[in-house]
């Protein structure tokens, strides 16, 4: 168990303790304020170099990370893999060694293979590695920003702040995650974060899109989806990962939508305060009806907005290796 992210890599949420997660959320909360200033920049990582290495294109996550690094005054080296020698058959080890030779403090890495960030962290032990999504394994900052968003919404409703509430608002919180759990790194990170914070997590989806041995995961599988919708305080939807071959796991998108899509009639089963989440990009009309996505209880845009402060917090703790001080 890692009890603090300070000076550590962020590769997975699986071994991050509750206090480590709360520390990240609290740090992010301080950065929310920075992002509302006219001058959205603090000198926390001035002179530090953060490389962003995206083997898999993801405009939103990449922008979010690079924005976060720049707001901390770090220099950003952005490697466009599509136009680099990686396409010419360079190994993971050589690519990271080349970037490392330029002098970097951290690398933010997205890769199509599970475990790639873990492997890279062994090649460059002196560089902090931030996993920005690896295959079907983990997407730790997404899990953190989802937890952050839930805490933010619940704290506002309770008339308190996230920081004052710690992990209290997660105690017994009922979270339902729906859809393609099997192929989803977001689901894995979300589950780890929610469970660590004290929530009760259930999953729903077609049998083929549940992960093997799910009965040994720290979640339970819902028997009745409609009842689970009534049960949930939070519903997290997942994108059907068509590019990972999910298509052959269900007879058709239509049938998936019919059985597990959050349609308007199904959304009526939700309590009005139930939070609806989606990591994006959404397949509107597949896993979520457009009208449901635009309900007031859907916090999808807020999730995107929280990406920057969470990533600022992660970079700050991992790279600076200290608590928040007078940097603000």
């Amino acid at each position, binding site marked *: 168990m890692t009890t603090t992210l300070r000076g550590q890599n962020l590769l997975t949420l699986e071994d991050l303790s509750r206090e480590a997660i709360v520390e990240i959320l609290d740090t992010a909360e301080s950065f929310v304020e920075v992002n509302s200033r006219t001058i959205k920049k603090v000198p926390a990582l001035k002179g530090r170099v953060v490389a962003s290495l995206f083997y898999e294109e993801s405009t939103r996550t990449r922008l979010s990370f690079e924005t976060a690094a720049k707001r901390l005054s770090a220099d950003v080296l952005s490697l466009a893999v599509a136009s680099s020698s990686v396409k010419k058959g360079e190994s993971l080890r050589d690519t990271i060694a080349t970037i490392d030779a330029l002098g970097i403090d951290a690398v933010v890495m997205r890769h199509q293979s*599970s475990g790639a960030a873990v492997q890279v962290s062994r090649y460059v032990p002196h560089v902090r590695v931030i996993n920005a999504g690896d295959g079907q*394994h983990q997407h730790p900052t997404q899990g953190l920003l989802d937890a952050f968003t839930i805490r933010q919404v619940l704290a506002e409703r309770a008339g308190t702040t996230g920081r004052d509430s710690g992990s209290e608002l997660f105690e017994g919180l009922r979270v339902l995650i729906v859809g393609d759990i099997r192929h989803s790194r977001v689901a894995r990170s979300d589950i780890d974060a929610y469970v660590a914070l004290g929530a009760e997590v259930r999953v729903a989806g077609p049998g083929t899109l549940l992960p093997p*041995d799910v009965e040994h995961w720290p979640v339970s599988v819902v028997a009745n989806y409609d009842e689970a919708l009534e049960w949930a305080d939070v519903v997290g939807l997942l994108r059907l990962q068509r590019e990972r071959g999910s298509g052959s796991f269900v007879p058709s998108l239509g049938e998936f939508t019919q059985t597990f899509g959050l349609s308007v009639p199904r959304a009526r089963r939700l309590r009005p305060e139930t939070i609806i989440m989606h990591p994006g990009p959404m397949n509107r009309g597949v896993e979520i009806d457009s009208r449901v996505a635009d309900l007031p209880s859907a916090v999808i845009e807020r999730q995107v907005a929280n990406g920057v402060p969470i990533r600022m917090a992660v970079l700050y703790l991992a790279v600076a290796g200290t608590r928040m001080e007078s940097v603000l």
Partner: protein
Amino acid sequence: MSSLLLRHGVVVHDDSVAVGDVLVHDGRIVEVGAKVENPGGAREIDCSGSWIGPGFVDLHTHLREPGREEAETIESGARAAAIGGYTAVVAMANTEPALDNVALVSYVLDRGARTLIDVAVCGAITQGRRGELLAPLAEMAQLGVRLFSDDGTGVQNPLLMLRALTYAKPLGVRLAQHCEDELLAAGGSMNEGLLSSRRGLVGRPALAEELMVMRDIELVRHSGGALHFLHLSTARSLEMVARARLEGLDITCEVAPHHFTLDESSCDGFDPMFKVHPPLRTALDVVALRGALQGSDIDAVATDHAPHAPELKDLAFDEAPAGMLGLEHAASLTYEALGGESCDPVRFFSLLSRGPARVAQLRQGDARVRHGAHWAALVAGEDANLVVFDPARRWRASREELHGRSLNTPYHGRAMLGRVRATIAKGRLVVDEGELV
């Protein structure tokens, strides 16, 4: 040719042991006994505390030549084999191109004949190992090929496998199957289970292996053919094979050291060094395999020695090639698995020498492949293919001290018990005190 006198060793026969000496002269064993006179000029090696037995035979070696010489050659693989105590290896057919015709088989046999040890060939079952059309089994059999396999993958098509078994039967050869249904294995990279599921890696389920073992047992029953199961890795596979043998089917099998020393938890850190097909299984499977080694249902420990160039093991876990080195560590790992200090030397040599030699049909005086007597008793007149194994020797495996061309051992840093001191292959002392002569 010079003479060699192995002194005061534990001489391991096929069902007994006796402390004594072994005299080798002119490439043959000339005397075995409690006390053998030095005829004069014979170099003496004090083998006190060590086991003297028939040289090890590996049924499953990937020598990578032709096609992947950067990873291993016939010559470099033979050196690694000699260090590991092997006096004969069977070269697998999945080279590039595959060993599916007389010309390529002859090439490997000729190159093999120039190495320190005997190199036999396992020919491909199907042309190009594509699983579509039979390779010329009869022609290759005339060159002395006794085993055929598409290893790397199994023959997926049941009709083709049935035909291969039926065709091979009158040739007196044996087919060897890599049992994994490729559709069920789904291109996965580790054992399917909780760990693969949590790590987001596509799993290769035990079912993929077991269903093919089950299928092939029935194909053997139907055809009356002879089949060898390569690297069985699950408890259930072993159970099915044991039952089939009891029923009298002509079935042999091997297990690989990595499957009885490592389990799937090694894959936790996404280190491609631990990626292999079939994958490392559960801790329970490891226990079952170790237990079975003590019984009589496993014919051989076979290495599945699979060298890969270092840069390929620096790829992401799911992109890296499967396979690990085995030749230099197999004997020590087998000794450990058989109970270390309580290891029965007869069983040890049965698994590493006599069993595999029987499966490979290595015969004395087989002119076609020029093999020595790898499975015979240790008596005067036999070709000298011997190994001296020191069961008390403690050492540490290291990737810096390997003798082949590749470094992909999963055992780097592992404490080992028991080590090959000397290898006498084709009548010559080729490894002396753990070093190549």
